[in-house]
């Protein structure tokens, strides 16, 4: 046994070094002589060095020769494979297929699962052809590692399917490949783009940017990214992060570039929107501070003392807060007059002495706030001096639209006898302003039987706001 093994090893060594021209292989009935008709050194070297795995086997699967690539594929030493049976390295489920491959003289190719030294499986594509020998006993098998092939194909598929723009340029910036993302952005089909110069895709005003970019990449030998813009096919503007990467050949010389461009239009728009919102927020905060400052100043001016100041200041601040909440609930698009009236009456809105009546009308944001504070003044005066200061008093608040103008009426009844105030209060001042100044009417009377106030709002103070519509306007 040992001597036979030694003899086999000697034979194999001789084959590897090209010393044998023929081989005697045991067949089922009788030994066969296998002769290499052309064992010319260049062919041997070619097979030794090529990246593809290749081997020769006997018709029964005995490995007569394999190249280093085949050994590497299975993770084994080459000398451990020589003389072994190919069947040992193919999974059980593929044995029948392997027999067919070995029996048929010519087999264009089949997939096999092969087992490596570590027990891992390798998908491989085996094609067989009879080696030109005297009789039909030796097969020359080419092995393609499908796992590698698969990876490469997947790689190509990833690039092709990407919505990012990915393509290759040669060293003269001529377009060589063109993926789906590039087609989506530019509207150019591969056949239209390939062969064109990269500079043709740049707006003429930005070609200098490209020249500068290419210079930077050449000098540094590294990828360089810039933010740039392109016109889409439909004329819309696309913001891009554009990366130019140098591709080096084996000799270290620049052979071309890859272009990867990522569309950041949405991100840019979000950033702009965020900037707008931040500015708007700052603006609203400052306006609110201005309103609070005004409430402080006006309350202090009319207050008889600290208690009086605190009382009216807190109540006005509360009225402002209620109006803001209503507007905020509707994204600052406006507010319904009914909500404003209810809010201005605060704790009195469900009071049986008060009657509120009017159709649904929407007010612009600033008008809503102005009306809320005006009504708050009227309500406060009614509670302090007017009809709400006695149990039997009544207040009617009504509004109606007439020719696009909104008339609002406040009338008090059955209160204590009214005497006109010595000076105009804040409510009166604000109502004077609320009405449309040029042709608006205001009727503010301190009738002995109750305060009466009637005023009109012009159509431009009303809103066509609907609850789903986001505000585009600010407060000032």
């Amino acid at each position, binding site marked *: 046994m040992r001597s036979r093994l030694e003899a086999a090893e000697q034979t194999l060594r001789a084959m590897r070094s090209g010393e044998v021209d023929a081989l005697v292989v045991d067949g089922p009935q009788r030994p066969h002589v296998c002769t290499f008709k052309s064992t010319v050194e260049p062919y041997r070297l070619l097979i030794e060095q090529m990246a593809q795995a290749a081997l020769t086997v006997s018709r029964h699967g005995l490995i007569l020769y394999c190249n280093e690539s085949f050994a590497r594929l299975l993770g084994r030493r080459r000398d451990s494979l020589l003389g072994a049976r190919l069947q040992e390295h193919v999974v059980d489920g593929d044995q029948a297929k392997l027999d067919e491959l070995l029996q048929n003289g010519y087999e264009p190719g089949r997939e096999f699962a092969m087992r490596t030294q570590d027990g891992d499986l390798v998908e491989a594509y085996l094609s067989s052809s009879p080696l030109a020998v005297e009789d039909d006993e030796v097969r020359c098998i080419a092995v393609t590692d499908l796992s590698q092939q698969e990876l490469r194909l997947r790689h190509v598929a990833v690039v092709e399917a990407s919505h990012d723009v990915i393509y290759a340029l040669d060293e003269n910036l001529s377009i060589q490949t063109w993926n789906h993302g590039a087609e989506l952005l530019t509207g150019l089909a591969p056949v239209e783009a390939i062969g064109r110069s990269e500079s043709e895709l740049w707006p003429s005003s930005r070609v200098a940017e490209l020249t500068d970019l290419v210079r930077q990449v050449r000098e540094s030998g590294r990828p360089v990214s810039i933010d740039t813009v392109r016109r889409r096919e439909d004329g819309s503007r696309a913001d891009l992060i554009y990366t130019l990467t140098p591709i080096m050949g084996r000799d270290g010389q620049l052979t071309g570039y890859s272009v990867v461009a990522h569309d950041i239009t949405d991100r840019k728009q979000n950033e702009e929107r965020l900037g707008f919102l931040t500015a708007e927020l*700052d603006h609203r905060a400052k306006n609110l501070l*201005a*309103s609070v*400052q005004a409430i402080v100043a*006006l309350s202090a001016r009319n207050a008889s003392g600290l208690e009086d100041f605190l009382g009216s200041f807190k109540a006005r601040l509360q009225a*402002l807060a209620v109006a803001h909440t209503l507007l905020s609930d509707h994204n600052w698009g406006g507010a319904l007059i009914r909500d404003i009236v209810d809010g201005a009456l605060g704790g009195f809105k469900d009071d049986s002495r008060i009657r509120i009546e009017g159709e649904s009308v929407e007010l612009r944001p600033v008008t809503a706030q102005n009306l809320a504070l005006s009504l708050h003044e009227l309500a406060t005066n009614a509670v302090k001096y007017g009809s709400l200061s006695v149990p039997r008093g009544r207040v009617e608040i009504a509004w109606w639209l007439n020719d696009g103008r909104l008339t609002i009426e406040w009338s008090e009844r059955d209160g204590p006898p009214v005497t006109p105030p010595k000076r105009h209060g804040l409510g009166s001042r*604000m109502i004077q302003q609320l009405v*449309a100044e040029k042709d608006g009417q205001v009727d503010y009377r301190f009738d002995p039987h109750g305060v009466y106030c009637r005023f009109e709002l012009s159509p431009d103070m009303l809103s066509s706001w609907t609850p789903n519509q986001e505000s585009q306007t600010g407060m*000032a």
Partner: protein
Amino acid sequence: MSAFRNKRILLVEDEFIVAAMAEDMLTDLGATVVGPAGTVACGLSLAETELLDAALLDVNMDGERIDPVAEALMARRVPIVFATGYGAAGVGGAEDAPVLDKPYTQEALVLALSRAMNIQP
């Protein structure tokens, strides 16, 4: 009492409570307030017809810009002070006009008006 005594100053401001405070500030300085106007249309009408020594203008009037009023005033060479929560943002053609950042104090108002009207505070 002050350099603003009897000066006629147009006040345009859409938030009436802020307008009322500004009116008090100007009145305290001895000025005569024209307005206050709560809309651009009303402000424009006053800017075109009233005799004016200066104007204090809110920039954003419930989403509408004050520009038409500012232009009418500039055509009549009426000095302008802008008041805005947006910070110092120039209004078309009136880049030199002082800008009051809201909320503002009476002292800041005096300084801005003095600068616009080119008088000693």
